């Protein structure tokens, strides 16, 4: 157990553990080998497992993701690293039309033990083409599962669970979280892979979020607690399936719901969360559920504008205040 493990290291340890446990696990992607991975997740694995199990690829996202689909069909357990989610648009046919549909189209003959890891999110001035979010697209794909860990502990267990699962799973890692540290206790048993977690209990308002935004939401809740507002923060940990029961239980308790996402607001991940929970908890809600989301704009390069284009701790706090004390803040 370590107090100070960064997320990248937790992922790296998880990869290592699974690769040493099971010879059919291999990983591939651009610079995952000799270079050790853009965000160090595959560091040292090349030396340890050799080039067949840690494969540096050409820049051919469509085909190397498809390669992993083919390998998974014959019993391998590939872990694809798409260098960043931005390049995943080139691999969507492999993910949506192949990985997610083959088990079904074959009448259940071919399981698909595939993991596709993608660093992503709005990081630091990477501009429009390198700040693409894809949650909404992937969520709408029946047959896929999506994990969105926010802590080293979740990164560790969810990656291991994903590799062991026989279903195709997209693993979304936030670039701003790789170097954030936290406790990793590899002895603790894992919760179910897609179970949501209450990061902070509270009675006045439920904030539902995930990944980097869950972290900011927690900070905002802590600030608000000084102002006497008691906010419950739920980290979804998974976007498909979503643990509706945990979410609904919270909303039924607090009667207020704020969904915080980095995704562009229009038709983003938050739309589904608000729609389902409003359908389900309509009579418990004292006020309309709200979304705080990224602007409907490609991400500007300029740093000030970039920051203004997605939720921040301050804007989350403001949105929560506005819901609890409407009209009282500017």
């Amino acid at each position, binding site marked *: 157990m370590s107090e100070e493990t960064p997320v990248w290291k937790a992922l790296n340890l998880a990869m290592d553990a699974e690769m040493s446990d099971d010879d059919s696990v*291999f990983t591939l992607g651009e610079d995952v080998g000799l270079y050790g991975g853009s965000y160090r997740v595959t560091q040292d694995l090349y030396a340890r497992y050799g080039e*067949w*199990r840690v*494969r540096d*690829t*050409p820049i*051919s996202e*469509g*085909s*190397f*993701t*498809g*390669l*992993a*689909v*083919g*390998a*998974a*069909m*014959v*019993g*391998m357990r*590939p872990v694809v690293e798409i260098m960043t989610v931005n390049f995943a648009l080139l691999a969507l*046919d*492999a993910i949506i*039309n*192949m990985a997610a549909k*083959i*088990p*079904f*189209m*074959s*009448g*259940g*003959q*071919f*399981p*698909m*033990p595939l993991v596709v890891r993608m660093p992503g999110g709005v990081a630091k001035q990477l501009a429009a083409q390198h700040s693409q979010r894809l949650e909404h697209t992937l969520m709408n794909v*029946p*047959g896929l*599962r999506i994990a969105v860990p926010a802590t080293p502990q979740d990164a560790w267990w969810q990656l291991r669970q994903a590799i062991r*699962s*026989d*279903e195709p799973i997209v693993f979304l890692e936030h670039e701003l979280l790789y170097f954030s540290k936290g406790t990793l206790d590899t002895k603790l048993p894992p919760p*179910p*892979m*897609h*179970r949501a977690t209450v990061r902070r209990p509270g009675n006045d308002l439920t904030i539902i979020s995930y990944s980097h935004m869950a972290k900011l939401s927690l900070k905002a809740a802590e600030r608000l607690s000084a102002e006497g507002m008691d906010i419950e923060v739920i980290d979804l940990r*998974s976007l498909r*399936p979503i*643990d509706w*029961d945990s979410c609904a239980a919270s909303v039924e308790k607090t009667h207020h719901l704020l969904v915080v996402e980095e995704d562009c607001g229009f038709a983003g991940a938050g739309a589904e969360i608000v729609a389902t929970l409003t359908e389900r908890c309509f009579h418990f809600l004292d006020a309309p559920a709200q979304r705080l989301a990224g602007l409907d704009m490609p991400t500007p390069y300029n740093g000030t504008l970039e920051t203004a284009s997605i939720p921040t701790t301050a804007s989350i706090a403001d949105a929560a205040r506005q819901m609890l004390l409407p009209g009282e803040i500017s």
Partner: protein
Amino acid sequence: MKRDTLLSMLHDMLLARAFEERAAQEYTKGNIAGFLHLYPGEEAVAVGVLHGAEPNDYIVSTYREHVHALVRGVPAEKVMAELFGRRDGCSGGMGGSMHLFDHERRFMGGYGIVGETYPVAIGIGYSIAMQELPEAVICFFGDGAVNQGTFHESLNMAALWKLPVLFVCENNRYQIGTEIHRHSAVTEVYKRACGYRIPSEKVNGMDVLAVHQATLSALQRIREGTGPQFLEVETYRFRGHSMSDPGSYRPNVEVQAFKDEDPVTVVLEESIPNYPTESQLDALGRDNIAHLTGHMRREGYLEMEDVAHMKDEIARLVDSAVNFALNSPEPDMQDAWQALNCNRGQEVVI
């Protein structure tokens, strides 16, 4: 070429033709729906190639794959039932004509998005190479599919890592209504393998023996560990692209010229000169085989009667495939969820 091999090739080609023509009728009757892409004219490709494959090789195919499945040994009744969307179809009625799968026979699916067969094939090849198994993958695709980006990406990786994949281009010169010289800057498809240093060869797809021979040599080289091989097989489809295509973009004379080279006819002719001599047959022991050759020599057309007989048998086989399909129940929603979650197992998700 052994007589049995020849006869079984002939059988598969006749079955292929009969099956597809019957599928067309069943489509017209409304028993089959969706897109239906038929194979008449191209039989020599599937038959020549797949008779060269071993049982533990893998096959990856396109939406025009009924015949690949049949020749690979998927029972005609299971293929027909799949076209009918029934529960006993080889994909449980979930896939249909374009998505035939058979795990047992390593028939790894028909893919509907042009260009998907390459990555699936190299993925299987990767797994084989990683485990150093003596297996190979056969990857089918059309001339139009050659211009999809995955062709380029996948062939590069196959060559780079010496993956055991035989790429087979079924060049029927058309991408639906677009003739090859209007979709490809280089119309000799086998030359396009040169950008990846993959050995490649052009073969006459109207001649099943040539296709078969080329396949055997290519698979042999693959099993020696030299990496991927590429065959361009020149062929022609007699029908439109699919049942909804009248095919009016092709001049009638063109279609007729190719019909004159019908690979099924070609194999019928081939089967005469290659017929084993009496002494060869003697070595196998005299019985109905000798009777057959004796008759052939006497009458000069025995092989035709033989064929008629074979055709009758095939007609019965196709009839019973249709009956099987008609009698198979439709899958229900429970089956569909089951197919989708086939890989869930005991896993606790939430």
